[in-house]
């Protein structure tokens, strides 16, 4: 098996994918969820305790499409009033749609629907309607991106110290590839992006670099016992094949576990586990087909330059 020899294929393939993903991120953007946009929160007092699925079922009708129920959060609540009596109700949080808060007409329709479904009357005066800002504001987003960039620089530094600069660069490029992969797929599919997505992306970063380092370690070890005449390309290829079983076994096990969560877990886990599965597939692929070939390409380039320098020096 000659994986590294066919590196042009993998690198071109991924390069084209990256262009598509970056294009989609720039031109199509993301379908931002309530955590990023903020929106309207309606507090509806109710005469009895309710569950979230119960309310969701009542409101899930075509006439109330403006509620955007699939990206809304429904939270039942209870409190004690001054007299010590329990009061129940539900918080319905909907996200901004095209920068617009919910109109009073839609709120009225939703409340009327709850009334008719539960056979009750709701005092309109007792509704509390709030227009809330995002949980993840611009500050937090900037902060998180900055943290990720610094963490990446840290990874680059660590791998450079433990291996060499070119390997660090290759590892980080594979990592960027994986993150762009997840972002790109979500952008292309118009999948909703919420705070849990951020957590999933962070997980992908961890997974990607972990996966890469195990292979790079093989290379490092084989370099120490390098046979005469063996090129770096051959050596990396051997290392990749030597750790192939481990790579496959690890990827299959972890993806299996997350797949179970994706298929069987609740609705709210879907976004999160879907991002993880995409990222893990990208991470497993990029370790073998991106990180290792890139290391070879960059090291070859580095050696060629050193060679050219030597020669220039010699002829002088």
């Amino acid at each position, binding site marked *: 098996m000659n994986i590294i020899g066919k590196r042009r294929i993998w690198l071109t393939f991924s390069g084209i994918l990256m262009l598509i993903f970056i294009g989609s991120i720039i031109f199509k953007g993301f379908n931002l969820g309530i955590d990023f946009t903020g929106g309207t*929160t309606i507090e509806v007092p109710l005469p009895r305790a309710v569950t979230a699925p119960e309310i969701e079922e009542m409101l899930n009708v075509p006439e109330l499409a403006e509620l955007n129920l699939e990206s809304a959060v429904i939270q039942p609540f209870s409190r004690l009033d001054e007299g010590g009596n329990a009061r129940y109700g539900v918080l319905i949080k909907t996200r901004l749609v095209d920068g617009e808060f919910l109109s009073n007409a839609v709120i009225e329709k939703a409340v009327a629907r709850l009334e008719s479904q539960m056979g009750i009357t709701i005092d309109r005066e007792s509704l509390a309607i709030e227009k809330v800002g995002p949980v993840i504001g611009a500050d937090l987003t900037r*902060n998180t991106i900055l943290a990720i960039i610094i963490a990446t620089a840290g990874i680059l530094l660590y791998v450079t110290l433990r291996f060499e600069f070119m390997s660090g660069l290759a590892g980080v490029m594979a990592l960027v590839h994986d993150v762009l992969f997840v972002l790109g797929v979500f952008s292309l599919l118009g999948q909703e992006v919420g705070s849990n997505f951020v957590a999933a992306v962070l997980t992908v970063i961890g*997974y990607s670099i*972990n996966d890469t380092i195990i292979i790079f370690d093989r290379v490092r070890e084989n370099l120490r016992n390098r046979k005469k005449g063996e090129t770096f390309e051959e050596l990396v290829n051997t290392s990749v094949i030597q750790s192939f079983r481990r790579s496959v076994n690890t990827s299959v096990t972890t993806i299996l*576990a997350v797949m179970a969560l994706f298929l069987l877990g609740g609705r709210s886990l879907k976004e999160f586990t879907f991002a993880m599965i995409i990222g893990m597939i990208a991470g497993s692929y990029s370790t073998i087909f991106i990180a290792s070939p890139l290391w070879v390409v960059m090291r070859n380039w580095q050696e060629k330059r050193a060679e050219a320098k030597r020669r220039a020096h010699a002829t002088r």
Partner: protein
Amino acid sequence: MALFSWKGESKRVRREYVIRLSLIALLVVACVVVLRFFPIRQGLDLQGGANITMVADTRAEKNVLEDVRKIVLERLRKAGLEKVPVTIHDDREGFIVKVGSREAVSAVRQAIGQSVVWESETRKVNLNLSYGEPKEVTDGYEVLVTAAQEITREAMEKAKTVVDLRVNGLGLSETVVQLDQNSNRLIVQLPGVKNAAEATENLVRVARLTFRIDGKVVMDGSDLVRAEATYGGNYNAPVLKLILTKEGGKRFETITGQNVNKLMAIYLDEEMLMEASIREKISGGEPYVDFNGSRTIDQVKVYAVQMNSGALPVPLRVIASSTVGPTLGKEAIKASIMAGIIGLLLVFAFITYFYKVPGALASLALIIYAVLALGILASLRAVLTLPGIAGFILSIGMAVDGNIVIFERIKDELRTGKHMRAALEAGFSRAFMPILDSNLTTILTGAVLFFLGTGLVRGFATTLIIGVAVSLFTVLVVTRAFLGVLVDRYPDRFARYFES
């Protein structure tokens, strides 16, 4: 050969492994006890919590109102209305002005105006005045003039940051703090809190600023007029200037005189903001903290904001609090827990199928791993949320990977013709470096995310760091002890497991 006889060499090995295994068992028991008595708190998304709405308290202090009353009286006098009585509202809402007739109200209104500015040496307060409906009383009409402090959007943003810091200082309790766009309200959701009243007390409390030497409080916030970010010191770099009261300045002089070369720490409640060494006796009441250029002006500004006005830029009061259900829904959580268990069983099945008995041992090690990691999280009083679980899943994945890397290495070593015991030793020592490297990189990433991130990013980082550290321990100590004891006892059988 008798079942429990050991050869000379093995006796020492056995004793070592027995000690290790009992230590592991002890740890597991400790964690189970912790989990039994201090169960892991679940976050808002998993369990619900308290929902608290706060508004900026726009009422001015009594002494401010007293001064403003004089200004109001002065304005009335200038308009020829000196006979009009003005009293301060009992609840500090503003003033009550008494007039003889309905018609006089507009004249009073014109005389007093829409706003008053109150200024002292240290503070400036803009009060907006609004007029209520005249109320008929026995000898005329009473008008309530509400005096509300102007609350800027900026001040509310700062209040949000302070509240966020206050509830989420450690990054373990994943709270939601949101600012209402039009009514200057802060909405806070606290996970797992049953007693909302108790929680809110902590939120709206004006934090206590203390100066400590050797852990002893030597001065407090009442000695400080305000803190300012400015440039100065040896390098003309950003410094934090403290402007002290007259008394505070004298006290500071005495304290610094007695504690030259000692460290003085500044605390906001129990959180240390900074520590500075006292170079000399400082008089004049305007000391500054020199960071020697290690902080940017913006960072120093944050310190100043935190220290000024007891950290909260505007006083807040709670207007509503209630208990809310989980955002994810109970049914969804049940399904997800089931799915998680199935996922874990799949992992066990897979590695047991591929690696036979060693795989089953690794599965056992993974269960121990889960108990240890959860136990540590519980003893740190962490709140588990979905992002936290993400960190956890990643660390489980890394623990599985660690086991697989070791098993593959042992196989390699066996293939070179080594004896099982030697192959085990060599396999572990060869796998040590890559496992250490990959885990350390992940911990490094986690640490950066913890220190720079906020909210959910911190929650993720915490569980990730703990998870990875425990996974390192599980792979290198627990799996090793299991395999060590059994390989020592049944080398040939294990050689077959690994070669298959």
